[in-house]
């Protein structure tokens, strides 16, 4: 498990990352979301040891992370492009050898990965001859080929077409299922919601929410949808509720005082037929907007 404790980083007067703490647990996907400039990339670079830490620490398996530990992590930086003019296989072998693999093993694992990603025939091509999607695949291979003990991926889905997104998602799930902790950042909230087991939301350099996706949803406001036969305008009179929206016979309300929804239901039943009364689970995007606005 990767534990981030009170990480802080300043650039001049700007505190880019401010006392950030969260865990990246073994065997699950942890999504890292936040707007531009929220501090995601800075945090990931500190976790990987490519950026100095002003305060706080990173723990790996319960002890402070070392350069040797970080060397065995897989990392995908935010902006991409390996060596454009070097052949695909050559540069993957080079990167694997830098990670400490002997030549033969580096060559073998690079070839295996190229085959898995359908790039075996492009092994001798120069990187710049590949399509952007395929270059992205080579980039992810570079993060995976040494059999990483943890994955830290900055925007692995950006620039991918839908089928490549699915392939990437499969790869991340597969690695997580071997017990490896996976942290990845993304702007695509629907994707994060679909993929992630846990979520860390960053805003202005601080953690604004952290937890399982269901857990975070449960923290969100509880809403009910009420559908009647006749106009539902009267719901505005019921105490302990916040009316989000009324449109003819349908109303969306938020519970402010516990039990107010029961009073609402009794009142509605007394007035006539109730066609629908359902709790509405907020989408991750709503939660994100909610917490980011706090």
């Amino acid at each position: 498990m990767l534990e981030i404790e009170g990480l802080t980083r300043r650039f001049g007067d700007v505190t880019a990352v401010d006392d950030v703490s969260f865990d990246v647990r073994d065997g699950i996907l942890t999504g890292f979301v936040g707007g531009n400039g929220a501090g995601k990339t800075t945090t990931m670079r500190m976790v990987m040891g490519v950026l100095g830490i002003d305060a706080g620490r990173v723990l790996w398996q319960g002890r402070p992370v070392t350069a040797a530990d970080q060397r065995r992590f897989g990392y995908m930086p935010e902006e991409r492009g390996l060596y454009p003019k070097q052949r695909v296989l050559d540069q993957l072998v080079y990167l694997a050898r830098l990670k400490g693999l002997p030549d033969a093993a580096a060559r073998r694992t690079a070839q295996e990965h190229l085959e898995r990603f359908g790039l075996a025939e492009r092994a001798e091509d120069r990187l710049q001859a590949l399509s952007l999607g395929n270059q992205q695949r080579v980039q992810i291979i570079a993060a995976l080929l040494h059999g990483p003990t943890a994955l830290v991926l900055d925007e692995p889905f950006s620039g991918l077409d839908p089928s490549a997104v699915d392939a990437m998602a499969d790869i991340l799930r597969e690695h997580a299922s071997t017990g490896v902790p996976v942290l990845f950042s993304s702007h695509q909230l629907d994707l994060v919601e679909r993929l992630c087991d846990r979520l860390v939301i960053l805003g202005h350099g601080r953690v604004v929410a952290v937890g399982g996706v269901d857990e975070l949803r449960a923290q969100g406001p509880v809403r009910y949808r009420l559908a009647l036969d006749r106009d539902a305008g009267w719901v505005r009179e019921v105490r302990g509720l916040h009316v989000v929206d009324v449109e003819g016979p349908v109303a969306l309300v938020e519970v402010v005082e516990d039990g107010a929804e029961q009073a609402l239901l009794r009142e509605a039943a007394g007035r006539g037929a109730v066609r629908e009364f359902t709790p509405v689970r907020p989408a991750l995007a709503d939660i994100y907007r909610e917490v980011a606005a706090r």
Partner: protein
Amino acid sequence: MSSVPSTQREAGWALVARREIVVKITDRAFLIGTLVTLLLIGGLMGYQVWDAGRTATYTVAATSDVRPVADRLASDAPSLDEQVAVEVDAVADDAAARAAVRSGDADAWLHRGDDGWVLTTDSEEKGALTRVTQDVVRDVALEEQAADLGTTVQRLRAGSTVTTALLRGDAEQSQLAGGVAYAFAFLFYVATLTFGITLANSVVEEKQSRVVEIIATSVPVRQLLIGKVVGNSVLAIAQMLLYAGVGLVGLSFTPYASLVPGVGGPVAWFVAFFVAGFVALAALWAVAGALASRVEEVQSTATPLTFLVLAVFLGALLVTGTARTVLSFVPPFSAVLMPTRLLEGDATWWQAVLAFALLLAAAGGVVVAAERLYRRSLLQTGGKLSMRQAWSAPE
């Protein structure tokens, strides 16, 4: 998935250095550039050989009254200068002679002037022909005057010859020293500039594409710097040795062949100074690359370095006297000047050792400082950095 054994690991810097070398020697532009340079060197040597062996034949127009002197010129010329042969073109009068020279049928017109003799050429003087003509005319005049006095030229000339002798080396050797020194200064300049720019560009390319972040999580940044400096130094030195080797082999076919063994010793010094000087400058080029955040910015971050490299080159050519002696101890000028002074026979071995030690110390210092600048600027991607900003930047 494969595991990472702790043994069998090749040092990070060696892997980096090997990649630098392999990428470069499989680069077509680099191979073609090297080949063209070798052809140029070979061509230059070939020209020397050809030039040494060729004889220039001059046609000299002469009217009948000066015919005896012209014939004497034709017969004596080869013995005076083995590269000069003279043919006589008999012309009717001065006007015909002028016309022959103007049309190019004759190279020169030999005739009497108001006070002595005149060699008239079309638009440029013929140096070798002039010298030979002067000798012949002087001999003819002396012989006539000696006959008038009832003596001989040999008796008149007795005891009047002056030959030259040098206490150290000889004239050809010193001329050659100048040539070799110039060639070396030029090679150093070209190598530090071309490999320097290559190095700076490869650093900023890694920075721009963020490959450097992947590498920095794999090996310490110091290893990356060392690998890049070592790789490019090996390439530059190999290229220089190749050029120097071809040049020396070529030289052995020229009339300077006897001097080749004498150049061999100083060449060893050249190589030693080249390595130390190149490494120091290479580390600075790496910093110039790291200060930029895009390839386009390298030109401006490398400007001071470009001037320094040019100053080393010009210093070797232009600085003379005491300043030259002093500068031959100052890194990085010493990298070129000290071996040059050694070749000229102007410096002693202990001076060379001292200058070399100073250069090595400076190279070491530069590498340490460069490592700090490199490490701190390498992961700053928010635009161009100044040296000062990089020095005090947080890691």
